[in-house]
């Protein structure tokens, strides 16, 4: 096996024993990226980057990570390296500081290079087709989407162009691409991981999380990036346990709820059968699985598309051509209010179609005459959705569902119908609204050889239950050992 095909925990062992060097690993990665990036397009601005520029510094070879490189989504600030949210409006932006997660990774010995992974612009999307740089292609079928918005990160890990990556999740943007690409993706509890340095989409929903080749790697990186951060006022002051201790615990007696609203008439039969088989496997490992109800499930998407877009309209108001990025050149215009024109033209030209659509929808929901009927109402239904989960978690340790309603769809299939695209988030969205942690792990393949993901949800700050359950399944199913043929 090539070095880039190994997991982080395998590589850490080899690096510690000095069987390989960090340079060996970087060489393998460089080779792989040169081989397949033109097909997969997981990374952006590749021409501006060269591995030969990298010289792993002494501090990188610290305990824990020993110089393992971590690939970063383009909306997480890396000091001095371009961070553009895959949008024209942030063209050329080089953050003057590192996000807290980046600082934590560096302190643990990670190597962070400037090559960033592709994403839907500002995380607006479920397919990575809304990127200013064009779509990423699913390594399992190059004509299919990798999912989104962290499609670049998921595709990079799945195609061994990254050992591990960071993604972000506001409505499923880590879990759904992880499912489509056959890798592991974790959305931590809201507040578990600092958002300082994450370019915000929806402040009450966003979380950064790891996308990895297996559950053990996911636990290792969850340990590193989690924790209270005084720079993030929404950061939770809750101790971080050692998530790797949850691995290997087994799931005898664990109570798992299977929500009936997620298995409705007309759902994709392949996904239904694959997930039901996975539930069967969980039962055979000793879990007690029963049907439960999350009655407000059908309202999750409308609630999300009001709250998330409303918050986005506020968060994206800062992109106006004044402090960073693209500015529309309207010098010489004969106009009454040149500043207003600069704002409007900068935003009109700088934002892509989906970004403009969401900002306008969000602005509408908050505007006079509509605020009560839409935004305030959505906040109240959000409470009902959260309470659905509270009721189930009173009697159950976790909930298991499909991650996505289908396997990866074809590039171009849904991008012209925004509503169809939004409906593909049906299983992931509620976890963001309720602030609960959720993980997606591979659990099978469709007859077209596209990965299918199993989602596990737990109550706030119960990531240990997620790792325990995910690991038990993974060790008995071994889907993570399969690789796409590129």
């Amino acid at each position, binding site marked *: 096996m090539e070095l880039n095909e190994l997991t982080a925990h395998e590589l850490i062992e080899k690096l510690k024993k000095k069987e390989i060097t960090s340079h060996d690993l970087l060489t393998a990665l460089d080779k792989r990226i040169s081989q397949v990036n033109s097909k997969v397009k997981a990374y952006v601005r590749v021409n501006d980057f060269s591995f030969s520029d990298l010289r792993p510094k002494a501090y990188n070879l610290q305990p824990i990570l020993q110089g393992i490189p971590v690939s970063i989504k383009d909306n997480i600030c890396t000091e001095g390296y371009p961070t553009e949210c895959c949008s024209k409006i942030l063209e050329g932006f080089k953050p003057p500081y590192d996000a807290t997660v980046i600082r934590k990774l560096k302190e643990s010995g990670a190597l962070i290079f400037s090559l960033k992974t592709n994403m839907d612009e500002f995380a607006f999307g479920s397919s990575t087709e809304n990127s200013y740089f064009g779509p990423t292609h699913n390594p399992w079928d190059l004509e299919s989407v990798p999912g989104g918005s962290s499609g670049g990160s998921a595709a990079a890990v799945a195609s061994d162009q990254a050992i591990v990556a960071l993604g972000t999740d506001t409505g499923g943007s880590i879990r759904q691409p992880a499912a489509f690409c056959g890798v592991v993706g974790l959305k931590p509890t809201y507040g578990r991981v600092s958002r300082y340095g994450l370019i915000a989409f929806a402040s*009450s929903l966003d979380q950064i999380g790891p996308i990895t080749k297996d559950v053990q790697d996911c636990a290792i990186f969850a340990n590193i990036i989690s924790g209270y951060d005084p720079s993030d006022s929404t950061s939770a002051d809750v101790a971080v346990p050692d998530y790797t201790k949850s691995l290997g615990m087994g799931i005898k007696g664990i109570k798992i709820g299977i929500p009936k609203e997620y298995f409705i008439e007309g759902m994709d039969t392949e996904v239904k059968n694959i997930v039901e088989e996975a539930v069967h496997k969980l039962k055979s490992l000793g879990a007690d699985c029963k049907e439960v109800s999350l009655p407000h499930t059908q309202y999750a998407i409308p609630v999300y*598309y009001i709250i998330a877009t409303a918050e986005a309209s506020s968060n994206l108001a800062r992109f106006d051509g004044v402090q*960073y990025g693209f500015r529309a050149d309207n010098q010489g215009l004969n106009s009454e209010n040149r500043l207003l024109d600069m704002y409007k033209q900068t935003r009109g030209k700088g934002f892509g179609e989906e970004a403009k659509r969401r900002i306008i929808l969000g602005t509408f929901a908050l505007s006079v005459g509509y605020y009560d009927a839409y935004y305030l109402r959505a906040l109240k239904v959000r409470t009902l959705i959260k309470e659905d989960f509270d009721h189930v978690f009173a009697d159950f340790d976790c909930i298991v569902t499909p991650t996505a309603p289908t396997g990866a769809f074809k590039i171009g299939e849904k991008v012209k119908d925004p*509503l169809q695209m939004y409906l593909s988030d049906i299983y992931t969205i509620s976890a963001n609204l309720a602030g609960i942690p959720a993980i997606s792990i591979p659990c099978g393949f469709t007859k077209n050889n596209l990965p299918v993901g199993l989602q596990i949800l737990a109550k706030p700050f119960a990531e240990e239950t997620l790792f325990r359950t995910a690991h038990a399944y993974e060790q008995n199913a071994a889907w993570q050992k399969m690789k796409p043929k590129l």
Partner: protein
Amino acid sequence: MNSKPKNTPEHTLITKETVQHVAHLARIELSRLELERLVLQLQDILDFIDKLKKIDITGVNPTSHILPIKNVLRGDDPGVSLFIDKALENAPHREGNFFAVPQVIE
């Protein structure tokens, strides 16, 4: 400007005027094609969202924030701030220690 179209409690009607008004609030200039497309798409999306109007929300408190934390403050202690040069590094147009923008005041 009449930005409020004929709505009923059950159905919000999106018109070109609605979208133009909202685009102005959001400081986004739309082309004629974008405007026409958005009117249709927004109507579609809102028709779907309108199912929320059927739920009984009497007595339900809004959740604007999922964690039970409030008033997160820090001590009034000066710390290190971003140096001016760093803060202005990405400026599309810089003049001295300022971001330069088109004239606002006559």
